[in-house]
């Protein structure tokens, strides 16, 4: 099926989709950078878990 890109039609090898640059792909498995991202992702997740356990949005009062 050819690329059409309208709804419900199979999209094959799309030319419109953004693709990562070689640098971005390299960084995805570059250990020093990924070690830093590992720490950062964990901090983001811990913060989000703490917010979630509050049961209210930031600045909102508990009932």
């Amino acid at each position, binding site marked *: 099926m050819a690329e059409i890109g309208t709804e419900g039609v199979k*999209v094959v090898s*799309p030319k419109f989709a953004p693709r990562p640059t070689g640098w971005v792909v390299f*960084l*995805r*498995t570059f250990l020093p950078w*990924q070690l830093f991202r590992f720490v950062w*992702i964990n901090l983001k997740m811990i913060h989000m878990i703490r917010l979630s356990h509050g049961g209210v949005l930031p600045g909102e009062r508990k009932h």
Partner: protein
Amino acid sequence: MGRVVVLGAGVSGHTAAAFLKKWLGHSHDVVVVSPKEKYNWIPSNIWVGVGCMKPAQVEFPIKPVYDKFGIEFHQARAVAIHPEGSADHDKPFVEIEYTEPSRDGERARLAYDHLINATGPKLNFGATKGLGPEGHSHSVCTTEHAVACRDAVHEAIGRMKKGERQRFLVGTGHGLCTCQGAAFEYVTNLEFVLRKHGVRDKAEITWLSNEYCLGDFGMGGIYIKRGGYITHSRIFTESLFAERGLNWIFRAHVNEVCEDRVLFETLDGTDHEEEFDVAMLLPPFAGVGLKAHDRKGGDITERLFAPNGFMKVDADYSAKPYEEWKASDWPRYYVNPEYSNLYAVGIAFAPPHPISQPRKSPRGTPIFATPPRTGMPSAMMGKAVASNIANAMLGRKKSPHAASMARMGAGCVASAGAGLFNGTAAAMTVYPVVPDFDAYPEYGRDLSHTFGEIGLAGHWVKVILHYMFMHKAQGKPGWTLIPE
């Protein structure tokens, strides 16, 4: 001495039961009813389905864990709830039917003071002709399904090694499916595994989904700040698919799965078909078919359950158009409005409405992603309800613990290939899960706590989470320190 009965030993039910026993101690009984002998950490089934993990790594026998906790376990399925008791039974009770081989088919009544319905879903393969392991497609919803799927993939790899081309179809098998995230993980892991086996050039992989756009995931997608832009998760997902050479079909409702092709309708009302050699298509979910009866034996199922079989809780179920949906429609305490000692958590509670905008084809076929209620939110609901029940039973006058999906976030790490140094995963946080356009008028979510990125670090997080949650579920030392 009081008694809490928990129906289901999945993420939400198991979390609720474990915390209830911890908080109630020996002063009250906690009983779990589950039709399965083993606990299954379902998020890792996708790795079993491609052969990166063995079944024993994602499941374990549950009874020894409950024996250790001091929880009574019945390997049985719940049949009916009698929230007012019956003429010959004063207390509320639940009727169960044993699935344990030595008592198979035997029925019993379990009286309760509080009942948590955490049965999870019925995998509704019957909604689409030919869908599922008994038809012509595979699934990764259970360990057994994932093993069968893995075997089919390995057979296909064998054929590709002999020079044959193979077509893989991955996604959703009905217009009202949820859990697109799991299918997304499966398709990217499948592509990764085919590369690892050196047969990627022989494979055509196609994603088929009921989502309005890629990256919807049943949450209307998410917006993230990236590279100086605020972009929708569609960009993120399309980029990954384009990079991996995956084809995609979206806005699709599968009408039938035949031996070598699916017949589907799209949102514009047109019919299509797609051929495959191996298909992994997730089923839609429905309630498990629990019945409910009043004291006189009258059927009150429709009062307690929504038409899709999920239990009604403290949500606003009034029918209203998409434009009028509010975050406050979503339940906070997961308690049934008619019976204050009856709760439903995880997939078992009836959501007030979807999160993604509902759409219908010109023929009236609903085609949109239904809301996810799994993983972290599911465990948090279980813990909140356990906390409220424990406080009530211990006579503590504390404010009830709320766990609205419109007030909690979710951390989602979607594997995109398993490898210690070459694996990747999309790590995402969403806050809140249900968008609140009153609090965040533009995007419905707090963009400072909503992010996503792909990389090896995400894969490490995913692996660590797997072992942490298996450790926690087995009640090993320090399990309470691991967050939901």
